[in-house]
């Protein structure tokens, strides 16, 4: 009895799947006629194939969907994306901060707000640091300018991720 090689195994699987070309199919059928080991192997592979096809889907318990939905109802907040209406409210808030700050900065409201922190006055530094520490001056105008930039970046992100992206995704999908 001839041995079944890896190559013939591959051919047999393609024969079972019906993906062989006509000439390959004729060759394997001729081989099957004269090779008992090959016929036996075809039987094994075909039985396995039929078993797998017959046992495809497992049906879960009847209340499966109900169980999933009850679990979701216990924890609904994390479920859906941030609603667009809330995103718009956040964006409006961020823009209001930027506008107010942008109006107040040129008016010189923050010009006189500056302070100096002497690090040597801090209790912890006295306890653990022997060297003299420098003083840190804080410029109110610079601080407000940084807040404006951070808010602009935040506003841009909210606009892009939470408002424009979901809107365009829905429009592209629905073709509206």
């Amino acid at each position, binding site marked *: 009895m001839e041995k079944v090689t890896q190559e013939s195994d591959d051919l047999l699987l393609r024969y079972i799947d019906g993906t062989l070309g006509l000439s390959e199919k004729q060759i394997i059928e001729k081989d099957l006629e004269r090779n008992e080991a090959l016929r036996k192997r075809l039987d094994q592979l075909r039985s396995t194939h039929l*078993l797998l096809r017959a046992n495809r889907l497992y049906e879960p318990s009847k209340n*499966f969907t109900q169980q*999933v*939905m009850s679990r979701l109802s216990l924890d609904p907040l994390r479920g859906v994306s941030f609603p667009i209406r809330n995103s718009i409210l956040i964006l409006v808030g961020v823009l209001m901060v930027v506008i107010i700050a942008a109006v107040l900065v040129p008016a010189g409201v923050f010009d006189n707000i500056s302070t100096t922190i002497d690090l040597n006055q801090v209790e912890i530094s006295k306890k653990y640091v022997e060297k003299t520490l420098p003083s840190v001056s804080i410029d109110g105008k610079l601080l407000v300018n940084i807040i404006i930039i951070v808010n602009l970046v935040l506003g841009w992100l909210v606009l892009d991720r939470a408002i424009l992206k979901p809107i365009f995704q829905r429009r592209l999908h629905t073709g509206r």
Partner: protein
Amino acid sequence: MTNDPDHLILDKILAGEQPAYAELVNKYKSYACTIALRILQNKADAEEAAQDAFIKAYHHLAGFNRESKFSTWFYRIVFNTAISYKRKNRHQFQSIENTVVEYQQEGEGMLEKTDKRKYLNAAMSRLNEADRTALTLFYLEEFSLEEIAAITGMQANTAKVRIHRARQRLADELTNILNQEALTL
């Protein structure tokens, strides 16, 4: 972006219609449980893992970029959840003997069918998780090789070879089991 009909349901859910998610659960529960069952080899664990996968998918719906089909993205979650379950519950892994007892409760009329299923499950349990999942997805006849690769995190060519080899190995294991059974008769 694909033209997936599920995306309409996703739009409803994302607009706040939580009950619409039940449509997706109903549509995919059998496939999800089948994939989980092939990995976990235990019905109760498989259903629990599939439920967890549905919950995880729901919580990440907003992040789904819709470049693939919803089903491909979701089955990847099922696959990963079942693999994590397997790692966590390795000590609780149900033996083939337990599965046999469960099938015997189905009645004598089902004997031939359950016997075949019993042998198939026994042979399947001798394959590794990735082989079992690849085979299951292949025989669900729902997915292209590319989709099977995306779900299992392999290259398409690797998935093709893996499925091929898994079919051969499964045939070998099934033959071995049946030979052993014949010897014990």
